[in-house]
């Protein structure tokens, strides 16, 4: 448990910057501020609870509240959840491995499917789009299977359920192609959230320890190339696809903007979204939104103690690399200087005006 002065200091600084609040209601101010700039909020319940049936049921209740919030507020265009919030990693892995499930496992897996259905059905009934977040490769096939089942149930009229593709995975592009072909065959819409990926260290460590080939692209350039190739694939198939570019990569965002212009697609076409994390890459989010594109921010929320790992990750990725300040810090310095200059110019102008008078 964090003690009072430390908790207060964190709350008023990095927590306030990177998180919306401790509860959904606590996020209202953030939602309002983002909405003022025509930026949507994706409420991300960031608490990683214990792996118990009670904790999973509690997570479902909380996600249902975020779906309800999205249904009530146009400023909340998506909801989101992680399958490991409603199932044990061990069970998901066992299903993927093809090992025989015990009667207990089967019952537990049936409950996972039921929880997944509760969330997606609620989203469908309330016309709210819902992202299923991507996770580690050794459970991702199970997550994909569950998600496609939901799409087949709820995406025939509207694109409600969206799957996430981590383009640092060597297999992601072919998975996306297969998913599109299946969606076309079965006649449902496919919502795709394209990200680069977040579990590289864990993936590589496991591949090394268990002696199988690295599932991640060898270089960042290969990942970038795969990401942009997927973007082009989406454009070629956007009759049945909807996309959310979950990225802080400026080039990928500009590439999408350029392609949309070339194809005569309106900036605010609802099949095209951009998303960044709250407190990060505001230069991308606010400039895209200013130009009329659909933008949303991932807004994590939860008790301060529970979101500390998330805050540590944000702090770590904003440190200088080899003496080079982060992009965020460089832009902040630029804006501080710009405002100081503007104040000086205003002062000069008023002095001159006073002299003339």
């Amino acid at each position, binding site marked *: 448990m964090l003690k009072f002065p430390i908790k207060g200091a964190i709350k008023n*600084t990095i927590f306030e910057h990177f998180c919306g609040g401790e509860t959904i209601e606590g996020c209202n101010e953030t939602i309002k501020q983002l909405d003022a700039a025509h930026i949507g909020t994706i409420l991300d319940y960031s608490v990683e609870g214990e792996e118990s049936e009670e904790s999973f049921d509690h997570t479902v209740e909380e996600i249902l509240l975020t779906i309800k919030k999205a249904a009530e507020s146009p400023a909340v265009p998506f909801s989101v959840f992680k399958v490991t919030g409603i199932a044990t990693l061990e069970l998901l892995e066992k299903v993927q491995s093809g090992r025989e499930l015990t009667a207990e496992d089967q019952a537990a897996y049936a409950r996972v499917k039921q929880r997944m259905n509760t969330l997606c059905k609620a989203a469908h009934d309330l016309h709210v789009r819902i992202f299923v977040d991507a996770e580690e490769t050794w459970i991702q096939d199970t997550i994909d299977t569950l998600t496609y089942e939901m799409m087949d149930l709820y995406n025939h009229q*509207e694109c409600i359920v969206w799957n996430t593709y981590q383009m640092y995975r060597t297999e992601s592009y072919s998975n996306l192609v297969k998913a599109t072909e299946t969606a076309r065959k079965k006649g449902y819409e496919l919502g795709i959230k394209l990200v680069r990926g977040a579990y590289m260290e864990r993936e590589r460590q496991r591949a090394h320890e268990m002696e199988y080939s690295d599932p991640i692209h060898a270089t960042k350039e290969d990942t970038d190339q795969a990401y942009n190739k997927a973007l082009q694939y989406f454009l070629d198939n956007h009759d049945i696809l909807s996309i959310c570019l979950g990225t802080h990569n400026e080039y990928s965002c500009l590439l999408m903007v350029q392609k949309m212009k070339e194809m005569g697609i309106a900036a605010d076409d609802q099949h095209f979204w951009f998303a960044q994390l709250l407190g990060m890459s505001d230069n991308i989010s606010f400039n895209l939104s200013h*130009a009329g594109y659909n933008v949303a921010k991932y807004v994590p929320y939860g008790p301060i103690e529970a979101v500390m790992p998330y805050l540590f990750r944000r702090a770590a990725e904003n440190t200088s690399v080899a003496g080079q300040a982060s992009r965020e*810090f460089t*832009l902040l*310095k630029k*804006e*501080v200087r710009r405002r100081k200059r503007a104040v000086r110019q205003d002062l000069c102008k008023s002095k001159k005006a006073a002299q003339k008078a």
Partner: protein
Amino acid sequence: MPKMDILKAPSHQQQEKTISFDDTSVAFANQSNWQLKKTFFIFAAMNRNWLVKIGTFFIKLF
């Protein structure tokens, strides 16, 4: 099946503008001078590797 709300054109339709991700006046337009200073100091602190390492260590202790 009624058309879903998400397919309605949003109220913020604007004339298309040229995008520059270097335009900090737009990027930080929602931050007052006071908020911008605060954000600046948070990022200035996070920019220091040693401070993040020490901070993370002590917070974990408490």
